[in-house]
């Protein structure tokens, strides 16, 4: 079996996280923003799994399952919010919902 070094794994996780972050910051479509958040969550989960395999502990995988559960919950709330947003503004552009300024 080809073993992947921890550094490489963490680099992948960091790249994934950055991709998610950039997506979150530059996208105006709120569905894509939600997807970017999911990518960031998975990047964090990957880092946990890598840590777990490096020290041969189950904790990393346990944390990943936690993140997975939380992500499921988050998506359900997020999708509901997106639906409401769409009903109200007839658009998915997040910048339309900027009434709560200063």
């Amino acid at each position, binding site marked *: 079996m080809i073993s992947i070094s921890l550094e490489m794994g963490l680099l992948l996780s960091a790249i994934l996280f950055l991709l998610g*972050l950039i997506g*979150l*910051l530059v996208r*105006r479509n709120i569905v894509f*923003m939600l997807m970017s958040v999911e990518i960031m969550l998975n990047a964090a989960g990957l880092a946990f799994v890598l840590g777990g395999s490096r020290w041969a502990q189950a904790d990393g995988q346990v944390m990943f399952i936690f993140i997975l559960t939380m992500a499921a919950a988050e998506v359900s709330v997020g999708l509901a919010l997106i639906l409401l947003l769409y009903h109200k503004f007839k658009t998915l552009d*997040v*910048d339309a*919902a*900027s*009434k*709560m*300024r*200063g």
Partner: protein
Amino acid sequence: MLDLLWTVPAIPFVGFLILAFFGKRLSRYIIEAIGVGSIGLSAIFAILVAINFMSSPPAGYSFSQRLWTWMSVAGFSPGISFYLDSMTVVFMLVITVVGFLIHMYSAEYMLNEEGYSRFFAYMNLFVGSMLTLVLADNLVLLYLGWEGVGLCSYLLIGFLYKDPSNGLAARKAFVVTRVGDTAMGIGLFLLYTQLGTLQIQDLLSSASDTWQVGSPLAIAAAALLLGGAVGKSAQLPLQTWLPDAMAGPTPTSALIHAATMVTAGVYLIARTHVIFQLAPIVMTFVAIVGAATLLISGFTALTQVDIKRVLAYSTISQIGYMFLALGIGAWAAGIFHFMIHAFFKALLFLAAGAIIVSLHHEQNMFKMGGLKNKLPVTFWTFLAGSASLAALPLVTAGFYSKDAILWYSFSSEQGSPWFYVIALLGAFITSIYTFRMVFITFFGEAKIEVSHPPGKRIKIPLIVLGVLSIIGGFIELPHTLGHWPAFSEFMSNALPEVHVPHELYSLEWIFQIIAGILTLFGIFIAYQLFLKNTALKDKITQNSFSRVLARFWFSGWGFDWVYDKLFVQPYIWLANINKRDVFDLIYSLIAAVNRIFHVILTLTQTGRLRWYAVGIVFGAIVTLYVVVFA
């Protein structure tokens, strides 16, 4: 029987509580029954206790009763506890009996005023506090009563609060007496730190053990106590509040500002007489204050036109006599004059109130006149009170009490011919201004219609007090006239006796004759100037010098003016400068910084979700940087 002592102050307090909490829902009849009845009941118990005290005196001629411990802090545990000795008996009787008569009078006098129950609640609270003051066995409880009567005085002066000038008079009384009270408070601290107790009897005995005669600490303590006494008793230089205190209803003036509260200073000095004896210089100062006050306010009374203000200045002047008596060591004579003064001055105020209410609240004497036949009961009782105030020889109580002071001011060891001359001059002026008041008010032409003559509840107190101001003096007859010093013998259980060199006794009759002749002469002058020969009076008062003098006296020797320039206006000036409080600037600076942050931070609230995400990222980076590299 003596165990009933606690009921004497307790009953008025109960009356106060009932009236304060339920007064609005009670009918006038019930309010009257509670307000007057509580003081009546208290007077009955006081009389019972007093009879018991005199007929079978307790050991050491004193009786203490401890109800409970008020507070207990680090070995300092003043109690709610009372102390009865012969001086307290006199004060207690005067407060309850005269208080009862005045309450009875008020029931009719205040009938048509708004706030009937409020009035009686205040009056009952006053009587309760005053009794606490005189019965207290420690100075802390005494101070509680002292402030209690001050509060009631404030409330009752400003009773008719809808007129702002009454409120101002109340405030003035409160602030001016506070000056004295502060001195007294400091005096209590000094006594406690030096002697370790505030139980009056322990305090007095340890003071005479610890301090030498004339030691600086004794002088300081006595001077501070004197400060409190001077404020409460309206003596020089804190006398300015009392004439303005006449803004209160007349029964208030009679009870608080003539008969009882203003003599609290006399009580305080007599109660702590040991400390004053250890400070002879302060004793002399007490006498000087009394002498100066009695003269200055006597002259002022001579020029007043408002009948209540005449009586107010006369009260200040008579308390000056009491201070003079205390200062020369004639303790019993001072207390005796207090008692007689309570009778006749309460009477004079009540009679003046009866006149005022009969004349549609007219207080200017020069608009009265010719009331002799229209208000006969008021006239005769007022005449009895006036005769007593002027010390008409032999037949009035005032003669016996004032004559004792005159005599001792010369003959006592601390007396001096100067005190005697001033006191004599004061007595002469007293008789002039008193009978000026009588002649202007009751004789001459009638100038105003009498609307409704006083009823029974006004007449009875007047008659009782009238009788007391005549016969009250016969319990203390001087050596020349029967020699029956029952009062001073009774007092000698609580207060030291006055020392008179023996060879002087044979001269006493000369002094009495001089005083008697001067009084009669004063009445004669008043008769000539204000009734018979008013042209002469006009001639005297027309020239410019006497007009200036009269204006000076009328204003009370310009004390108000001086205080206004010296204290009130600089204070207002300072307050104006400091309108934007300097210390407040520190706090407004903090507020300003916060406001700036608020303005800056609102700029970040763009409402754009992605900018918030940028903010979070930025925060996360900073945090990471701090965690990793710092």
